[in-house]
């Protein structure tokens, strides 16, 4: 850790993009942080994307947030509960909170911020689809009125940041930055949040400097040991690791799998590991009568559940973990990360790797001689994605399925899934709401204009569809969880997807830092402590 005495910069020297704490003469604790990508914008509602949210979380705050374990904790709201009318949620706001500019945080700011995030140019509007209206009750009470009961409303608010109404209006930034039409607004380069850190300077793709907020409401509640954050994106993995090894940065995200050992062995450095909120799996076209990418005429082998089960058995998950992932993965039996509501150990149990049984199933389905098919795979999206696909090609060969691999960059791979142009593909899925409904809505529900947008499997089960829709408004949580379990049972029975593993996150840091890996890959530096 770099213990630097903060030096006031002598006036007149035009030094930019090189922040040094200048306010307090006390000892400053600087954390130099690097990850692969930079935040895309400082406007908190303009992009729904990991690195952008992570940086925003240091400066802005939502009503409630996820802590370093992924649990929901109060932030700007102190309590929340549905009222007697199940379509209304009431939030009590924290009193005495001020924005960095000194403005008081009140119910008006909440109403304003939520309305801003619902505007057409906002990237966060989908998360607020169920919100019909936000009403101020008094200065520190707000009601969220939803279209029908929404038991999971709080889960959708963890990345919805609160802005000051006065500041945003005065600076003409009421409309979120319009990325499609080139609107730049004041909020793209300036911030005024309530968070633990304030923006000092920022050069995109180069360096962002934050400084502790002296008036932060959470003093005493959070460690707040870091007083200055210097954030540098370093795109090249080798350079990022080199920067950590040479002591030029203190903390990095996205440590490449092959360098984990190197970092861990170095004196003074350590790697902290935890399961990530992302599961990797294969999708199969189960819906069409015939598929173009195979050599079977007039039939779709994937439509037969026995073929899907045989393929599931043929995937040797422990081997993928050991050889391809260098032990950095958790083999999965269900397409749901372990901390999601609905997850059970039983669901996540995967079948034993059994070639003989798989071959028998293939023969039973009438494909004893196998068939050939194309597998589409991204090569720049998930950890070792293409290598996993290569391994699976060999495993499928063992049961007679001759797989041709087509690995493409993500920008070309994902449209194949959305346009239904692939019959066998790799996909990874994270669950920001930490609830099964999110997975069902996107991956299991029949594809319609609103739901099932990532259902590349063409899976359609009207009975499940109605159960999935019922989840959105079921306020009896016990009953709701029972329905979730029923849906999962059917999804597993039908073997709609072939799960591979849960990805593992690795953060590299100096030995002196105590910091747990956050499952959403979002470090919140107010929680960081040092030895």
């Amino acid at each position, binding site marked *: 850790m770099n213990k630097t005495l903060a030096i006031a910069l002598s006036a007149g020297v035009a030094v930019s993009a090189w922040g040094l704490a200048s306010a307090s003469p006390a000892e400053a604790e600087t954390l130099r942080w690097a990850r692969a990508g930079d935040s895309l914008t400082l406007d908190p509602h303009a992009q*729904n994307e990991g690195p952008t949210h992570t940086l925003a979380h240091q400066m802005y705050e939502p009503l409630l947030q996820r802590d370093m374990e992924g649990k929901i904790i109060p932030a700007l709201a102190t309590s929340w509960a549905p009222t007697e009318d199940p379509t209304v949620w009431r939030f009590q706001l924290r009193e005495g909170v001020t924005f960095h500019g000194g403005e008081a945080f009140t119910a008006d700011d909440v109403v304003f911020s939520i309305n801003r995030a619902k505007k057409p140019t906002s990237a966060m509007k989908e998360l607020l689809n169920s919100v019909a209206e936000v009403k101020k009750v008094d200065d520190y009470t707000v009601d969220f009125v939803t279209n029908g009961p929404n038991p999971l409303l709080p889960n959708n608010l963890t990345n919805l940041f609160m802005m000051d109404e006065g500041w945003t209006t005065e600076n003409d930034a009421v409309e979120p930055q319009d990325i499609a039409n080139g609107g730049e607004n004041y909020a793209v380069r300036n911030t005024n949040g309530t968070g633990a850190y304030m923006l000092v300077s920022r050069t995109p793709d180069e360096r962002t400097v934050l400084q502790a907020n002296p008036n932060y409401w959470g003093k005493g509640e959070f460690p707040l040991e870091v007083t200055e954050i210097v954030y*540098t994106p370093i795109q090249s993995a080798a350079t990022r690791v080199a*920067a950590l090894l040479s002591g030029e940065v203190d903390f990095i995200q996205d440590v490449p799998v092959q360098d984990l050992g190197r970092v861990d062995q170095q004196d003074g450095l350590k790697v902290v590991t935890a399961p990530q909120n992302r599961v990797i799996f294969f999708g199969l076209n189960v819906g069409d009568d015939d598929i173009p990418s195979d050599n079977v005429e007039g039939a779709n082998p994937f439509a037969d559940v026995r073929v899907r089960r045989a393929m599931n058995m043929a995937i040797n998950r422990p081997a993928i973990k050991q050889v391809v992932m260098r032990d950095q993965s958790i083999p999965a039996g269900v397409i749901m990360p372990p901390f999601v509501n609905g997850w059970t150990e039983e669901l996540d149990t995967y079948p034993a790797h059994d070639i003989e049984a798989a071959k028998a199933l293939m023969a039973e389905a009438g494909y004893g001689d196998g068939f050939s098919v194309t597998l589409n795979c991204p090569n720049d999206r998930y950890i070792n994605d293409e290598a996993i696909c290569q391994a699976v090609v060999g495993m499928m060969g063992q049961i007679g399925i001759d797989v041709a691999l087509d690995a493409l960059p993500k*920008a070309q791979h994902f449209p194949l899934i959305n346009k239904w142009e692939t019959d066998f593909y790799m996909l990874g899925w994270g669950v920001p709401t930490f609830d099964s409904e999110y997975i069902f809505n996107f991956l299991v529900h029949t594809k319609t204009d*609103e739901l099932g947008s990532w259902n590349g499997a063409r899976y359609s089960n009207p009975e499940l569809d109605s159960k999935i829709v019922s989840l959105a408004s079921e306020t009896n949580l016990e009953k709701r969880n029972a329905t979730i379990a029923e849906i999962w049972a059917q999804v597993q029975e039908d073997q709609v997807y072939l799960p591979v593993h849960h990805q593992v996150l690795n953060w590299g840091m100096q030995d002196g830092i105590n910091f747990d890996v956050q499952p959403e890959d979002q470090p919140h530096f107010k929680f960081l402590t040092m030895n």
Partner: protein
Amino acid sequence: MLAFIIRRVGQAVIVLFTVGLVAFAIFRFMGDPVENMLGQEATVADRAALIERLGLNDPIPIQYLRFVGGALQGEFGISYRLGRPVSELIVERLPATLELAMVSALFALAFGVMLGVYTGIRRDGFLANVIMSSSLIGVSLPTFLIGILLIWIFAVEFGWLPSFGRGETVTLFGFWESVLFTVSGLKSLILPAITLGLYQMTLIMRLVRSEMLEVLRTDYIRFARARGLRRQAIYFTHALKNTLVPVITVTGLQLGSIIAFAIITETVFQWPGVGLLFINAISFVDIPVMAAYLLLVGAVFVTINLIVDLLYFAIDPRVRFDSPGKGA
């Protein structure tokens, strides 16, 4: 002379139009920017709406004409990734790339000429042979590997130089963020500049060496020796001067490729120039940024070629007298 320039400028414009057209023909195979822009929660309807707004449904020729129309007015559209005007982004990033390219070119020229002269004079010397054979490494190793090797040696093992980024910058003329006037800035410049310039340095060195060998065999050098001139004067005043015309041509032309090849070096060292902007644009399918960058590189090459041609015109009288009006 004037007709020559006009004709050259006309050719340059055609080249730029072609670059734009080829680029646009390729972009449709690069994937779908909408996916990246919307995030995984977007509905089918959201996607359709954004595609419509961006005009990505239009046929490629129409998209191309729209781009050309904007480019002629200095408008390169809006970055899909950052949501800011592309022209603004490029103006912001260009100083970093130009400084890096200039320093690399100077490094390549200075060391290339020095080592070239040395190896030319000491043709059979041990050190000259070592330099010649190790220069093969410089030519054959890919840039990113050289960059990582240098980082490994000088940043990780010795800790002398920074492994990434630009150090302190000083603002010149209100917009040009320069690293040339601060210690940490200059230190951060060393490794990227060597990485970027190494190939050009070996090229220049080999060129100077062979030219020197050629020149040293000519009669006037022999007469100069016979006159008893000092060896230094012979080598540097008489011989080197006559090798420089091809060297300057090659250096000029290589400057274009230094700017273009900066993509890789900038990625390895997280040097925030236009190359890094371009790499990010590729993975995001940020079509406006890619198109503008390709045009920029095209313009750099065309301009440098034009200047080199004009220099010929000025330096070498034969071009002027042999074919008046026909150009080079």
